[in-house]
């Protein structure tokens, strides 16, 4: 036997180490299977519109990673969020209730007691270890409301680079909701630089602003030409945040009991900050010009919207890279063997009709059409489901997978492909940020009803605007350019009656 060089020794040592690591891999899967119940992981990506994902046919190749993941998954092509921003969208996902029932309709709002009592974490808890993390504070506040159902609530300030103000709620983990509103939401309130904010401690707030006067969260960096990702509280690097999530999931998988977990990543929410590898990668695509409607509150020039959309697409591609890496890491570690992995979003993002973002009165598809991809244990091929589904369907479906009863009051049904039937259903989305959450809904409400191929949008109670209906055929007119309300009177009449009947029942405070 010849002499072993130092290089050969290192190779052998590395191989032995890798082998010993791999020998642990099946253990993760086996642990979860001991109880016979599957693990469940929900990965939510903030403001990820299905309309901008190539896995759903978008012309820019924004999600090659998701396309590869989808080869062995259930892919829902017409999945809708029940709300057009985080609180309403996520609350519906957690409770199986529409916003008119849970009333998480205001920015920074909470849900009512009925929703708290029947949130998915509490319903899962018996026999499941429950864990959750959110990089979006609006969702994290809801998690604080559901704290009793959570075995592990990973602190909001985790995996971050730099913050511009103290994040105090983390020091009051036994009293997170009051501490959040009394301290983080109220005390500094973003300081002078943000209009509409009155810090309750004007002196501390001013000193804090002075201390962070030179912080520039949008400063271009070599790897991030648009600056680091920033969630209004702290900046972070996607690779580090995703690695943190991976480690948390692997920790959960090592437990000797099934787990139900929720991870809410802030990306690709604005500010769009793609990694440099994804900047400038996309060619121009033809985007139809849609003029502002009478309910648009902004009038951003079309060219500016196109530019923002392009950077958003680059950011989606950047996030897609991290998603695929995360899923591959979990799969390689054996953590997905007995696990349902749900990939979805809380709401979409709008780049049309003079508007950009999701703080909007509008409910066009771009802002409510979200991805839903489910990796089920043992699934080896892709299955596409075109039946419209809603975020309120997630809670009852996941409860059924876990062998539990859903609450009788849940307004969602079982997802087709996961126990549900492929029948035509009526799915609602709602926007009512301008309304008081706990009085009858009457001032400034937008509702959409999707049924089969048709979508009816109803605007009501907006000042100086008459109540208005719009009707679109989503199969023939994906871009929602041609309002059929005055032409297809039969469909319009039936859907209007159904929507108004339901709204009349649900708009009133219980």
């Amino acid at each position: 036997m010849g002499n072993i060089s130092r290089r050969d020794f290192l190779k052998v040592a590395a191989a032995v180490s890798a082998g010993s690591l791999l020998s642990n891999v099946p253990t993760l899967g086996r642990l979860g299977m001991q109880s016979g119940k599957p693990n469940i992981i929900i990965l939510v990506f903030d403001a990820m519109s299905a309309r901008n994902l190539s896995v759903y046919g978008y012309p820019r190749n924004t999600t090659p990673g998701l396309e590869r993941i989808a080869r062995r998954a259930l892919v829902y092509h017409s999945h809708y969020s029940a709300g057009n921003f985080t609180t309403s969208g996520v609350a519906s996902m957690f409770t199986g209730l529409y916003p008119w029932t849970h009333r998480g309709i205001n920015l920074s709002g909470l849900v009512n007691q009925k929703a708290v009592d029947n949130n998915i974490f509490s319903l899962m808890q018996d026999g499941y270890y429950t864990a959750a993390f959110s990089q979006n504070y609006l969702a994290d506040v809801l998690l604080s409301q559901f704290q009793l159902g959570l075995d592990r609530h990973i602190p909001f300030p985790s995996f971050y680079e730099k913050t511009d103000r103290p994040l105090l709620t983390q020091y009051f983990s036994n009293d997170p909701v009051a501490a959040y509103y009394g301290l983080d939401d109220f005390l500094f309130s973003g300081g002078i630089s943000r209009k509409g904010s009155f810090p309750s401690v004007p002196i501390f707030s001013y000193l804090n602003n002075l201390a962070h006067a030179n912080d520039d969260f949008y400063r271009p960096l070599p790897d991030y030409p648009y600056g680091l990702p920033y969630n209004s509280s702290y900046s972070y690097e996607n690779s580090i945040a995703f690695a943190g999530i991976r480690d948390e999931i692997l920790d959960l998988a090592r437990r000797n009991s099934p787990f139900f977990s929720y991870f809410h990543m802030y990306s690709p929410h604005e500010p769009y900050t793609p990694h440099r590898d994804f900047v400038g990668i996309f060619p121009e695509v033809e985007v139809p010009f849609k003029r502002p409607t009478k309910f648009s509150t902004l009038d951003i020039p079309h060219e500016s919207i196109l530019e923002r959309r392009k950077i958003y697409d680059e950011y989606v591609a950047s996030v897609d890279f991290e998603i695929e890496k995360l899923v591959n890491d979990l799969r390689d570690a054996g953590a997905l063997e007995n696990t349902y992995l749900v990939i979805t979003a809380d709401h979409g993002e709008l780049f049309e009709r003079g508007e950009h973002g999701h703080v909007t009165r509008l409910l066009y598809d771009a802002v409510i059409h979200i991805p839903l991809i489910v990796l089920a244990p043992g699934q080896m091929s892709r299955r596409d489901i075109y039946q419209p589904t809603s975020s309120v369907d997630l809670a009852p479906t996941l409860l059924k997978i876990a062998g539990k009863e859903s609450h009788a009051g849940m307004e969602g049904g079982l997802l087709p492909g996961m126990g549900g039937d492929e029948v035509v259903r009526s799915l609602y989305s709602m926007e009512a940020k301008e309304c008081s959450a706990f009085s009858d809904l009457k001032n400034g409400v937008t509702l959409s009803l999707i049924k089969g191929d048709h979508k009816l949008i109803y605007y009501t109670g907006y000042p100086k605007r008459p109540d208005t209906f719009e009707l679109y055929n989503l199969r023939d007119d994906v871009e929602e350019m041609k309002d059929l309300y005055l032409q297809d009177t039969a469909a319009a009449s039936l859907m209007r009656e159904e929507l108004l009947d339901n709204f009349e029942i649900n708009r009133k405070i219980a």
Partner: protein
Amino acid sequence: MHTPIISFIIWYFEMIKRLPPFSDILSVYAVIATMLFAWSILLFIWYLPSWLHFMGVGDLIGIFSYVMASSFIESLSVLFFLLLFSIIPPQKYFRNHFAVYGASVAFCAIGLLMLRLILFNFFTISIPYFRQVLVFAPIAVSLLSVVVPPLRHAWLWFSDRLVVFLYILIPLSVFSLFVILARNII
């Protein structure tokens, strides 16, 4: 030759002796506390209608306690800063007129910070050269107050009237601290 500990104790009591009279400290603190607590309470009342909708009485008391406790800590910090300023320079410059200097400086500085927030939030107006204004305006007003007797008397009268609020604010702060402690321990 004293040991360092003895030296520190001697120095500490020297510093204590340099502090202004307790009645002056109290009247200056009354100005600071009344302004900061009033600001917080008004903001709390402003937010309250929305919180009422989705929170119980316990949570609302909790929020109020966090707000009061933070105002208490902020007001004590401002007082501490002014006291520090009163013991460092020669006594004749600041300590002997602490009630007037302290009340006028605190009123102007805190008032300016509040005015800035109100102007910006309601009218999007920024005060030009704000940092300089924040430093020099309170100094100018306090110097003027010491020199002009009617102004001096006005400050003394004003700060003395506000002391009565401390009978509410200090117990409220202590109660708030207990509430926070209870909510986080029990």
